[in-house]
């Protein structure tokens, strides 16, 4: 009898994802397929069972290698090594690391043969070429001193991943559209429409500006619009799916020529993927520097602002206040509330006391009542995170009421709208804004925003246009721009921002 069925259409679709490894279990004959972005697939006589980070204990959906070892299945994901025992149906998770350093990503498994064969050992190669050995006794991965493993791992260092695309991209391009696409990495959920894209885009924070800039630039140059590739939603939470997975999915699609992203948590992962897949990635705004990334010219970061900078402002605010008493002003909106809660938690950790927690609906037009509550609570500072218009109105009011406020917001908030609506002296408010805003002494910020997004777009366009033609040139260009950015970061831009705002 022939195997005819696919038990899950979702699993079948997942086969269209590029895969990194196929491993056959010698005992059961089952095939284990590691995909870049679609999890681990078991093909048992045509039955496709898909294990993902959502429906199983698998650490991440981006698998760099798979190995069947002594009845267990090991998956090297970008979020650690997952081990699955089909007999007990249990998953284990290991994050190999050297000493106290951050966990490393294992990119490839190796079996080091031995005499007798039963003493063969399972190794994993980290991206930097160092070997880790699996110890079945402790069920853990530890740095290995095995010479053979070291040699084998070294030889594959920086080797491009052998990514197999089972289905070549089938596209018939209208002549007005360039045959490339930009992947956009967006953390979560709401939907807005973007001019030039033929469908609504999920948007959250910053990327809309970058996308619009990108499109505007091409239009200005008289070029055909770029077709925007799809971006998978991500879950902004630990463990269940993060932007790096989405990034990897985008980056591994053959039709995607570049990726623009924001706030990618695992810098080393994007670095690995970018390099292994030969894919330029522009990260719009995280302001984080990750060790090892500097050498990698394929990832570009704008280095303008981000959590670190925002945290610096908050810390400065708290340090400035004696026994800080903070008030929280919430405005309706899911994601803004989520972010604000993060900052409230952060402030609490630094010893701030939350003396008032006020909910304000700008549509209700009851700003006066809100301010009264803040004054009554004798708040020394106010934390809020809102949209541009509401923020502007609120900050103006707070200023008049003689309170200090930390507006924790990026360009989705501090933008043209904000500038239009904010009172002239809004600069006295503590606000996290892009560098040039601060350097200009707290003036209206729109210019800097354009600077930032245009810069990102320019880099990306340069990379895209050169993709497939002269990679080395693109590499060099990105390297140069990147080192400029790094230099800016090193010059302590953020110290300036915080100080200039506080001195006022």
């Amino acid at each position, binding site marked *: 009898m022939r195997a005819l069925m696919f038990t899950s259409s979702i699993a079948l679709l997942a086969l269209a994802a590029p895969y990194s490894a196929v491993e056959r279990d010698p005992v059961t004959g089952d095939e284990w397929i590691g995909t870049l972005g679609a999890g681990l697939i078991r093909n048992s006589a045509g039955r496709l069972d898909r294990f993902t980070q959502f429906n199983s204990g698998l650490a991440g959906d981006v698998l760099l290698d798979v190995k069947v070892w002594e009845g267990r299945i090991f998956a090297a994901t970008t979020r650690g090594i997952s081990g699955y025992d089909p007999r007990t149906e249990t998953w284990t998770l290991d994050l190999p690391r050297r000493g106290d350093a951050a966990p490393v990503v294992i990119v490839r498994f190796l079996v080091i043969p031995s005499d007798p064969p039963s003493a063969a050992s399972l190794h994993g190669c980290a991206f930097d070429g160092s070997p880790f050995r699996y110890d079945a006794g402790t069920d853990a991965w530890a740095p290995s001193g095995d010479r053979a493993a070291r040699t084998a791992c070294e030889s594959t260092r920086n080797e491009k991943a052998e990514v197999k695309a089972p289905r070549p991209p089938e596209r018939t391009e209208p002549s007005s559209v360039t045959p490339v696409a930009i992947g956009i990495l967006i953390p979560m959920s709401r939907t807005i429409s973007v001019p030039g894209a033929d469908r609504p885009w999920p948007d959250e924070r910053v990327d809309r500006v970058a996308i619009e800039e990108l499109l505007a630039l091409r239009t200005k140059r008289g070029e055909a619009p770029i077709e925007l590739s799809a971006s998978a939603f991500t879950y902004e*939470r630990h463990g269940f799916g993060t932007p790096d997975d989405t990034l990897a999915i985008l980056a591994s699609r053959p039709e995607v020529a570049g990726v623009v992203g924001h706030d990618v948590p695992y810098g080393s992962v994007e670095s690995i993927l970018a390099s292994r897949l030969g894919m330029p990635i522009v990260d719009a705004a995280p302001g984080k520097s990750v060790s090892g990334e500097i050498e990698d010219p394929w990832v570009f970061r704008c280095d303008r602002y981000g959590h670190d900078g925002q945290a610096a402002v908050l810390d400065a605010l708290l340090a400035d206040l004696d026994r800080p008493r903070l008030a929280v002003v919430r405005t309706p909106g899911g994601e803004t509330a989520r972010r604000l809660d993060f900052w409230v938690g952060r402030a609490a950790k630094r010893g701030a006391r939350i003396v008032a927690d006020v909910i304000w609906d700008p549509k209700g037009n009851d700003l006066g009542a809100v301010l009264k509550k803040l004054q009554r609570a004798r708040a020394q500072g106010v934390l809020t995170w809102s949209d541009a218009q509401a923020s502007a109105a609120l900050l103006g009011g707070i200023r008049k009421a003689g309170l200090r406020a930390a507006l924790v917001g990026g360009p989705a908030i501090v933008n043209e709208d904000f500038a239009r609506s904010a009172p002239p002296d809004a600069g006295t408010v503590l606000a996290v804004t892009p560098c040039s805003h601060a350097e200009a002494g707290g003036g209206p910020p729109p210019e800097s925003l354009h600077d930032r997004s245009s810069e990102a777009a320019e880099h990306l366009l340069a990379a895209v246009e050169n993709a497939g033609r002269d990679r080395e040139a693109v590499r060099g260009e990105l390297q140069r721009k990147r080192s400029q950015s790094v230099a800016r970061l090193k010059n302590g831009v953020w110290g300036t921002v915080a100080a200039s705002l506080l001195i006022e």
Partner: protein
Amino acid sequence: MSRKLPAFVLLLVPALAAGSEPAIFVGRQVCVSCHDAGGAAHVCTAEAGEAHGKSYRALLRPEALSIAYMTGTGEAPRDSQLCLGCHATGADEGPRFWEPTFRIEDGVQCEACHGPGSDHARARRVASKRTGETRAFDEERLTISPKSDLCKSCHVPRASHHMVLDDGYRRPEDDLRYKNPVGLAVSAAGDRLFVVCERSGSVAVVDTAARRVLSEIQVDPQPQDIAVHPDGRTLYVTSRKSNTVSAIDVASGKVVASVPVGAAPHGVRTDGAGERLFVLATGQNAISVRNPRTLAETARLVAGTGPWSAALRPDGKALAVTNLMPEPAPFRDPHHSEITIVDPRDGRVSARVPVPDANTLQGIAFVPGRDVAIFTLMRTNDLVPMTRLQQGWVVTNGLGVLWPDGRVDQVLLDDPADSFPDPTGLAVSRDGKFAIVTSAGSDRVAVVDVAALLEFLRTTPDDRRRNDLPYRMGTSTRFVLKRIPVGRNPRAVTFSPDGRFAYVAATLDDAITVIETSGFTVAATIPLGGPEVVTETRRGERRFNSAAFAFGRQFSCRSCHPEGNMNGLTLDIEADGIGLRPVDIRSLRGILDTPPFKWEGTNPSLAHQCGPRLSVFFNRLEPPSKEELSALVRYVATIERPTNPYRSAEGLTPAQRRGKQVYDRKTNNRGEPMPPATRCGYCHSGSYKTSLQATGVGSEMWFDSEAPDVERIDLSDVDALGWFGIVYFSYVSPDPSRLRALDNPHLRGIWNSAPYMHNGTAPTLEEIWTRFNLYNWHGVTGDLTRQQFNDLIEYLKTL
């Protein structure tokens, strides 16, 4: 205060030195060494302490057996996690986390409320020399109000306890002596019939010539299926309760080996050469390939969902396995079931055949000489509201035919006015002429003319075979020769090697019905020796398994709850509005103490659930009499849970213990306190892991109608909620009043009750949170790390 600690506390200290490990249980003696009546900080009232101390001993009283029987725990009360959960301390964690000073016999001890005390005892030991201050306890647990939810998690009325302690119900010992034959095998010579008796846990050896029981071999509890090794010297029996397969030496009638095989095994077969033994680990969707001599596992194959019975093709080149449950399908999408084909020669799965729209595949047999397999199936029309009962279109029953090329045909055994409910056992005669199918729900068997059936299919146009026959009632006149009444609830059937007789196991009559195949008449009934008396539970069991009460005899309780569990489907019962609230069919195992019933929690007791309400929608006839209802409820209460394969006798593994800590946590990963209502144990509390309340977790869909009344939270009430509570309910759960409250399900046996959520939309435990808890309404899980989340799942699987 300086106080000399008893010697055993000093001995304890080195053992407690490992600081990073979670605290473990030290036992009451260690606690009272400081906190006795004369000492400081003794706040527990002596009365409460004493009563709590007796709780374990209560499990040794004879009444406890009856209570345990009514809870379906299936274990002695002193071994049952369900009982120990409220009658003892530290049972969930298990002996691995007990100090030598800890004695479970001390019942509900200090640590039951205050948490494991090893850290506190160690801190105390160190601190007493200096400051006398110790704070190794979680502050929240230092003072327990008698009205706290912690107390209420156990101190709730339990129907099982009320039934026994107040109403004087006692377990009828006859209940345990029934036989319940469910599996049959005949020796090669045909002189012996081996009958697997599920209830009595034995294999009865029947002399087929004398038609009487020769001997009875005790095996592991709840035996299910039996296979004879080709050499005729060994029998293999699976046992559901003990999760084992046993080998029996035929000559001596002794069990020679018994090994664990995976959860709730059902079917067992050998290959033709007797070199491989295939055991179906039904509860874990696996086929365990074993060495028939040593019973050691050589491979574990992936089956469909709930592998049930296996049949070997006469040429030995294929083993076909039916699967009881359909494969997981997207919400309200058509389902299919799988026939798994194993190649016995290399012990690997060679093919999988989908059987569209079918479920509850059970008996299977090959037709000798034709390489065609026939199997039983049900077609539950789960995608339409159950408004079509009168037309006979809710559950239909039939046969599947698997051709050598992998094609599957489906035909119905139902006639428009007379269904053939619960087709269960199936056998084909050695000459391939006849098949006998049992209808467990209507106490009959049908004799199928195999050649006529195959010819009927072959001559039917392709389109009709696919789109008409699976739905068409009445076609069975083309191939069913005869329907023969047999004993109650026939579940297994087999032919004698010479083909002259067929033996049918009448499960709820404790008898074998012998059918003479020359004229297909009942030749004899062989009693297996069960009690003559019919207890109330037995009456209930018969009613549960009989379709007699349903309109047109279409289905029994068992049709949707095979083996008291569930069939993995989602049904739209029209009682609550057509097209509204399709709900996941829930397991009936051990549910008496988990009221209210139904997902909406509208039925306060099992009698409400099984009584008039059900009769209105299911049988359209008169409701059951009071006696019938009482018997049915008694029986449903006793339906046992399977043994949990994820939990060992030593208690939790380190990963499972970590998971329990996540379950019990009171602060999130940022160190912020979690309001009680956001913790797992608030709604899933006590021994059953349910507070017996209803809660909204945001799982409702637009067609789940409005909740009648949901408590609204006053966001300005700072005193009641605290600042964090206000933040929580403003942000994490912006409008909890809009959430539709649904019954907090108990979590016992959750490892075996997929799919999850009230409408079965989560195929795996993980997806309950990764897909359906975006807003932290179903407990705060958004901050969990991957490791914590995996640990939590590991713990839940032990319940």
